[in-house]
């Protein structure tokens, strides 16, 4: 194994890690806010990727151009899901909450297949295509743009949560629902907002991912497990920690595959996750 191959692996893993992180961010946000794990998170991603694909196939909109549309569409989906489903099960036992989002996941997957079939689709000839070579290390331009996009999205999310009044209200709600209510914060609105933002994050991730990944009804399941691991590794509810965890997962995955064995790359990721969770059950930067 030459140094060049290792550096290439490191770079590839890093780029993918940012995208993993953005996918996981929405999941983390929603959990932090109301302690509900959205099992349909992968299907939200699938929805975003299909939206991107159709915008390209029908109107020739490049994924980067249609990104704001996808983002808005997913935010709307988040609101819909919150008002149509989640609001009704807020006080229900945890098992009911699990089954509700799990059922939604299966429904969305089946609906996508019924509507669009099971074929693998690709957005062809996007604006950003090809790759650059830096001293023998290749960087795919779509991957580069996707990771930069993910970082921008993270920056925006961080600014919104930490610097705006609504963001502060969101934080207050996630810290103590009762107290926030007493302070005059409309917690129901905050929950709905959380779902909208969480879904918008995954919308952005889906649009960026669609530039270089295939799209089909089950694509969400491929990423969902990694998203759960990323969130748990970073610490549930801590959005910036998700960025760190995503990068760790991305890099460990590739380096594990290079240095140990490709068949074991996820085993390496999950072992690391287990070690971290044993040592810090709340995740690397978790708050409880």
């Amino acid at each position, binding site marked *: 194994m030459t140094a060049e*191959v290792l550096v290439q692996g490191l770079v*590839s*893993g890093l780029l993918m890690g940012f995208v993993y992180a953005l996918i996981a961010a929405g999941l983390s946000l929603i959990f932090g806010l109301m302690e509900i794990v959205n099992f349909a998170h992968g299907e939200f991603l699938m929805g975003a990727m299909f939206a991107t694909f159709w915008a390209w196939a029908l109107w020739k909109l490049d994924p980067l151009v249609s990104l704001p549309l996808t983002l808005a569409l997913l935010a709307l989906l988040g609101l819909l899901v919150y008002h149509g489903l989640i609001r009704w099960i807020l006080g229900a036992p945890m098992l009911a909450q699990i089954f509700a989002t799990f059922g939604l996941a299966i429904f969305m997957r089946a609906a996508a297949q019924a509507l669009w079939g099971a074929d693998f689709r690709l957005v062809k000839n996007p604006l950003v295509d090809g790759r650059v070579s830096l001293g023998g290390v290749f*960087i795919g331009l779509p991957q580069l743009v996707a990771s930069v996009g993910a970082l921008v999205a993270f920056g925006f999310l961080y600014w919104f949560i930490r610097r705006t009044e609504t963001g502060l209200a969101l934080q207050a709600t996630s810290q103590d629902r009762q107290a926030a209510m007493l302070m005059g914060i409309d917690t129901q609105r905050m929950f709905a907002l959380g779902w909208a933002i969480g879904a918008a994050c995954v919308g952005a991730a889906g649009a960026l991912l669609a530039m270089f990944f295939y799209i089909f009804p*089950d694509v969400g399941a491929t990423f969902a497990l990694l998203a759960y691991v990323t969130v748990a590794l970073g610490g549930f509810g801590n959005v910036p920690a998700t960025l760190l965890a995503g990068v760790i997962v991305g890099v460990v995955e590739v380096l594990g*595959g*290079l240095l140990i*064995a*490709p068949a074991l*790359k996820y085993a390496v990721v999950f072992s690391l996750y287990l070690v971290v969770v044993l040592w810090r059950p709340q995740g690397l930067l978790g708050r409880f």
Partner: protein
Amino acid sequence: MRRAVRLLSLALSAVFATASASHAQAPKEVVIGVIYPLSGNLAQIGIDSVTAMKMAVELYNTKSDLNLPAMKKTTEGLPGLGGAKIRLIVVDHQGKPDVGQAEAERLITQEKVTAILGSVFSSVTATTSQVAERYGVPHMNGESSSPSLTERGFKWFFRTSPHDGHFTLAMFDFLKDFEKKKGVKFKTVGLMHEDTLFGADSGKVQEELAKKYGYEVVLNMAYRAKTTSLDAEVGRLKAAGPDVFFPTSYTSDAVLYIKTAKTLEYIPRMLIAQNAGWVDPQFVAEMNKDIEGHITRSPFALDLQAKKPLIRQINELFKKQKDNPGGRDISEAPTRALTAFTVLVDAINRAKSTNPEEIRKALVATNVPPDQLLMPWTGVRFDEKGQNAGVRAILQQIQKGAYATIWPFDLAAADVIYPLPGFKDKK
């Protein structure tokens, strides 16, 4: 009184006569359980296969003069069973062995199917066939290529198509033939396979044969199926740099492999794929120029239609099916399903019964001639393990966005493109 007794006995014997007649009468329908992937990664393959089988059912249930097994007939339904109609019960195994197992159990015990057909994934076929074996129900398979499936000594399991042993043998025979013809010499091979039964068996057979044929295996790596990235895998390939690369991947991973190889600029001199993703028509359409020159093994070739008019006839029918939006050409997966299905129906027709043992005996006695096959095989005859002994694997190369048969050289419709062009040259 006597008259009354006579009348009564007449009436009774009439009742018995009709009762026994109706007992001996052939069933009105033959129910066949079809277990295919209709959701998940390989759903399109399952959907296309079911479309082909439904098309065949329609042909069996009406008059038809197509030269497929038991299909040339002047009556509706199956002549051997007094015109019984065929009904399919189609179920989805989602690519999961446990779901396949449960569905097989349900089809046999609840739906009382006469036979089972399925299931594409070798790992699922392994469990569904186990259930069929336990209940003593014939299980036909047209596409699972793991050699171990017919090595288990099952009494009720039959496979029409070649397994990875046959296919892999063909790949290496081709390499030797090619070396001789072109005066080149390959030294090293690299293997990459997904980690379900299909990939694991493929990797094992390829490694064994590569060594036997005198090639050095510089890399044999399994990877997690449905992975999110293949950066590490392609990185390793690039570092090892084998002359010939053999991937075994389903469509999703095959797409990812091409994308990653393109980004990391990995081009072996020759690529020979173990079918799966590389024979998905959508894959060829989507990847287009990026897979120009890739070779895959296949049991079916559309470009053989010049030599086999049956292929053209079936293809025209297939394109008109309502479950085939866009009128796509018939591809490898549906032809394999169609072949297995027609061989099974032929056996049921010859058995003249839906009794499992009778059907099994008829399957053992199967002898379908080559002119009734869409495949370039020498026929369908099952050996004692239930494996078709008449199989013949061919190799195809993707040339200008379509499959061209390149080996065996006597069947070849085109010359081999060699070495593999770089991604830049494929514009």
